[in-house]
């Protein structure tokens, strides 16, 4: 094993199709027009010395090290800023160049500490490398003069005003100004790659230095801790604290982040089995070498002391846990599940697959349910996030997934972001989007809250439609009204790709006066001018793309909104080529994959309905059982059935339904009514408070497999350390299945993928060998598309003709009134992830220690609430307390909070209203009242107490089995 080394070409690749040929050091090289001489040389295998250039940012030309000579030209131009041209003859090494470079290096080193042996960058320092490359042997200037290196002069001990102490305020990296060579790579990475503009160079000449914000500490600045600056830094100035503690890595593997649905590729850089750092992989096609604070830094949960490493059992949920052997645990679960089925019927148990686990693991859990339990009671957390996407896009386009790859955004001219907050929820996509917006693409934001994208450095939305929560369908249908009534639709596209009669029916529906912006203004609170302007802009600005998130799906009319979005894309001809499309931003790392793998109770892998005889036949033959042809229970239905007494046992892999699902009391009642709740997880999560069996889980670092991201991209997950609990999750499921007599014998996840490919047409071409070769592929991947499908519906829809659907707005029954006059909506924050089980166990808590309630100054003042006050948040379902944050990011009448912390229990207040088609809960609209409060509610106290009781562990198992 060795480090995966990526070549740094010095400057970004050129996209030009015109090629030019030049000669570098006597070698002919042909490159696209616009390529720098530095990059052309590197293509020919010639490394021109450089410091300020790196291919993640544009050329800057400041370090004066990469100079070259060009025949027929004067001087020594910098190769990073000089474009390659036809017929150029370039020399990279001449006596003149050698002298200049050595002189430049001598100056650099004269203001740099010589502590290389004890420096954290030792072995990974470009300054050191360049000193070697140019043959620096002597620094004639000495270190006595003005410098940034020493706190005090050696001669008289006088304090050095130029010296700055190390900034260690960020939990993950340090900034040591004494080692800075002011190449400004960090500043440019923050600007060009991340798009935050948190860093700058302050001062001029010898005074110039890197400054976060206005000479602030990193933690106090606008820095979002994405780490792009650390990656860009050629010296030890910006260094991961983990590297300082551990040392340089010695081998690495490419793997996939286990946080959000962007699915970034990383190099996990290791020393032995210890993870030294995560470095985003340049060839990762989702992230193109970028990352966010979670993926790069927040992996500490994998080794957190809270991880449970031995299986545990208890009779009653009021008992303390008892550690047992794996064998005992499997035997117990198998006999309990069989007993329950014998007693209450075959359909009285079920399972929940994890959107955090791999495709292979998810496939096995649904197989266990279908083959082993003999029913279809399997569901996944997509139920509570993107199930309406599945329903809506399948109905309109014929496939339950987004239509584009993330690269597509580079070709987009106008973007609608609706019900999503990419810079917090999907940060790496957010950065890619901002990059395109800085290049001039137009932006329309439809969101109750003024999300960062509405106005952020060098990005400003052309339109922000701050609609009242729950009125998505009205507003999107009204956009369609404008497009149809003003004749802005793409008739040629519709006639060719869609059913023209259905379009006409839909067109007359949306043209009705009740869908006009003027009428919709009254119920949505969005002025008619904004709706008209946004519709015109979207329909007339070239490639239009729609990106959306849970603010669309988690409503009573979630599925209807997805269909309204699909209608809009079809009506404007924005489907079937790069730069356009309907793009759901998926929440969890493998929520797309878990849906693909047949995790829904009505669908077998590949979205084939369980009632389809031919599909069932494929699995029945392979698995040797008869499958039920009826849909099973969805998560909310399971809980209802549990309360009714007909559902008694459940196997939950990697999902915390008690914290993440709505109406906590109802979830708790459902779980409490069951006789055998098996939780398979890293930690004693909130659901485990109601569990009878706990099976320890493994992290993404501890297993092989694949994740499928929001762009349908199947990415490899590679094992870099042994599972601390002893077994990868797929092994645990397999052992459980075998305890139930199923006789599985997979020896590696690749064999599970082979079974998926053999049974599922859209995965027919997927093998681990292909993934090894290509890095990743996007399904469908089969005979027709052997290397996968980046953009779907090219030339025609999967279902044949695109289907327009009437989308009538129906107000939710969750209404405000005198008792509950405000609307609560929920969301998330950059540093935390989902219910926080992982991120709360990392240093990310420094950015977000608790959930806060955002409330408009007007509403706060009416209630006598000041910033930072404890407030009680009450709905018809329940009440909780948290601190208030007074801000005008929310409109009057709307309040907002995150759901990252179990102590807050935001879902105590959410209701059990749900999407009409999929039962996806209506998290985004709850009528509430806010009042000043002194402390936790009775429920919070009780809950805390119950949780503490429930987590007791007695009877530790002896070490050796």
């Amino acid at each position, binding site marked *: 094993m060795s480090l995966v080394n990526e070549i740094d070409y010095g400057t970004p690749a050129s996209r030009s199709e015109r090629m030019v040929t030049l000669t570098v050091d006597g070698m002919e090289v042909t490159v696209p027009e616009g390529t720098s001489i530095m990059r052309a040389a590197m293509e020919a295998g010639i490394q021109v010395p450089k410091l300020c250039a790196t291919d993640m940012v544009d050329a800057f030309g400041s370090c004066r090290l990469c100079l070259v000579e060009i025949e027929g030209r004067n001087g020594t131009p910098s190769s990073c800023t000089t474009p390659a041209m036809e017929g150029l003859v370039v020399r990279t090494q001449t006596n003149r160049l050698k002298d200049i470079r050595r002189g430049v290096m001598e100056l650099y080193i004269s203001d740099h500490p010589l502590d290389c042996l004890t420096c954290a960058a030792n072995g990974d320092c470009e300054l050191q490398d360049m000193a070697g490359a140019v043959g620096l042997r002597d620094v004639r200037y000495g270190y006595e003069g003005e410098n940034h290196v020493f706190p005090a002069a050696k001669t008289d001990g006088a304090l050095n005003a130029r010296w700055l102490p190390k900034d260690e305020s960020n939990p993950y990296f340090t900034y040591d100004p004494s080692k800075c060579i002011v190449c400004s790579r960090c500043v440019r990475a923050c600007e060009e790659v991340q798009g935050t503009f948190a860093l700058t160079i302050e001062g001029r000449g010898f005074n110039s230095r890197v400054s976060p914000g206005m000479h602030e500490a990193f933690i106090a600045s606008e820095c979002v801790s994405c780490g792009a600056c650390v990656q860009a830094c050629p010296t030890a100035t910006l260094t991961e604290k983990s590297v300082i503690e551990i040392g340089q890595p010695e081998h690495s593997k490419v793997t996939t982040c286990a946080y959000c649905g962007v699915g970034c590729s990383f190099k996990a850089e290791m020393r032995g089995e210890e993870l030294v750092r995560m470095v985003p992989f340049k060839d990762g096609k989702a992230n193109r070498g970028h990352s966010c604070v979670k993926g790069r830094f927040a992996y500490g949960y994998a080794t957190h002391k809270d991880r449970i490493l031995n299986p545990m059992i208890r009779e009653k949920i009021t008992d303390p846990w008892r550690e047992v052997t794996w064998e005992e645990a499997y035997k117990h679960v198998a006999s309990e599940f069989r007993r329950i089925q014998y007693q209450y019927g075959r359909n009285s148990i079920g399972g929940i697959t994890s959107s955090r686990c791999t495709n292979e693991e998810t496939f096995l859990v649904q197989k266990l349910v279908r083959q082993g339990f003999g029913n279809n009671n399997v569901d996944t957390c997509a139920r509570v996030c993107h199930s309406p996407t599945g329903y809506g896009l399948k109905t309109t386009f014929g496939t339950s997934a987004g239509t584009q790859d993330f690269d597509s955004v580079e070709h987009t001219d106008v973007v609608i972001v609706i019900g999503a907050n990419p810079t917090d929820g999907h940060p790496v996509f957010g950065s890619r989007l901002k990059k395109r917006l800085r290049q001039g693409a137009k932006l329309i934001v439809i969101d109750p809250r003024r999300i960062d994208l509405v106005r952020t450095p060098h990005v400003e939305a052309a339109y922000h439609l701050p609609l009242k929560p729950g009125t998505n369908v009205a507003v999107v249908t009204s956009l369609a009204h404008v497009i149809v009534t003003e004749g802005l639709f793409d008739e040629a596209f519709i006639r060719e790709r869609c059913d023209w009669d259905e379009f006409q029916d839909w067109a007359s529906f949306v043209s009705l006066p009740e869908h006009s912006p003027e009428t919709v203004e009254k119920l949505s609170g969005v002025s008619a001018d904004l709706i008209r302007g946004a519709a015109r802009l979207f329909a007339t600005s070239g490639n239009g793309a729609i990106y959306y998130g849970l603010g669309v799906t988690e409503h009573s009319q979630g599925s209807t909104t997805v269909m309204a979005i699909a209608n809009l894309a079809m009506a404007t001809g924005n489907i079937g080529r790069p730069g356009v499309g309907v793009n759901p931003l998926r929440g969890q790392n493998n929520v797309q994959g878990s849906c693909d793998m047949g995790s829904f109770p009505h669908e077998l892998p590949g979205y084939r309905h369980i009632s389809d005889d031919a599909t069932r036949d494929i699995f029945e033959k392979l698995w040797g059982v008869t499958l039920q042809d*009826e849909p099973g229970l969805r998560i909310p239905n399971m809980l209802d059935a549990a309360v009714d007494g007909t559902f008694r046992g459940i196997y939950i892999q990697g999902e915390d339904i008690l914290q993440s699902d709505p109406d906590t009391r109802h979830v708790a009642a459902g779980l409490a009514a069951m006789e055998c709740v098996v939780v398979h997880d890293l930690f004693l999560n909130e659901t485990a408070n109601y569990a009878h069996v706990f099976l320890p889980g493994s992290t993404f670092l501890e297993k092989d497999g694949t994740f499928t991201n929001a762009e349908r991209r199947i990415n490899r997950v590679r094992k870099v350390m042994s599972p601390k609990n002893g077994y990868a999750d797929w092994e645990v499921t397999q052992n459980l299945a075998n305890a139930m007599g199923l006789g599985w014998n997979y020896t590696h996840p690749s064999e599970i993928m082979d079974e998926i490919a053999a049974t599922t047409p859209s995965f027919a071409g997927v093998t681990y060998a292909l993934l090894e070769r290509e890095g990743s592929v996007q399904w469908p991947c089969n005979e027709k598309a052997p290397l996968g499908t980046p953009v779907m519906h090219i030339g025609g829809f999967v279902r044949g003709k695109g289907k327009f659907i*009437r989308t009538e707005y129906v107000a939710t029954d969750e209404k405000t009134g005198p008792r509950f006059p405000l609307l609560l909506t929920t969301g998330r924050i950059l540093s935390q992830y989902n219910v926080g089980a992982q991120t709360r166990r990392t240093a990310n808590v420094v950015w977000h220690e608790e959930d806060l309630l955002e409330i408009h100054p007007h509403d706060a003042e009416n209630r006598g609430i000041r910033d930072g006050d404890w407030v009680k948040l009450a709905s018809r379902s329940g009440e909780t307390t948290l601190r208030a944050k007074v801000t005008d990011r929310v409109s009057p009448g709307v309040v907002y909070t995150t759901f990252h912390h179990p102590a807050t229990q935001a879902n105590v207040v959410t209701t059990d209203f749900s999407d009409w088609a999929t039962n996806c809960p209506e998290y985004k609209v709850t009528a509430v009242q806010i009042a000043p409060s002194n402390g936790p509610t009775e429920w919070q106290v009780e809950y805390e107490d119950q949780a503490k009781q429930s987590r007791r562990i007695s009877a530790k198992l002896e070490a050796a089995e």
Partner: protein
Amino acid sequence: MSHSGPPHSGTHNKLIYMANQIATFFASQPRDEQVAGIADHINHFWEPRMRAQLFAILDEEGGKGLNELVIEAARQIRRPTPVN
């Protein structure tokens, strides 16, 4: 519905509510797709015991609380056969 006190179990009321929600969506669709749409949706997504409960409401309570369209669609909804 919803927050007012349930006459039966919560599930019973919730089921009626869900069926009516589906009916409300299909009520806005073209005339000939309404009833078939409701029946098709419930056949595709409702587990047999949910459909059994729906039929109990139809048979024993005359469909009290159910939208007219749901009652009309019932003829096309598959009556579940008890499994074990």
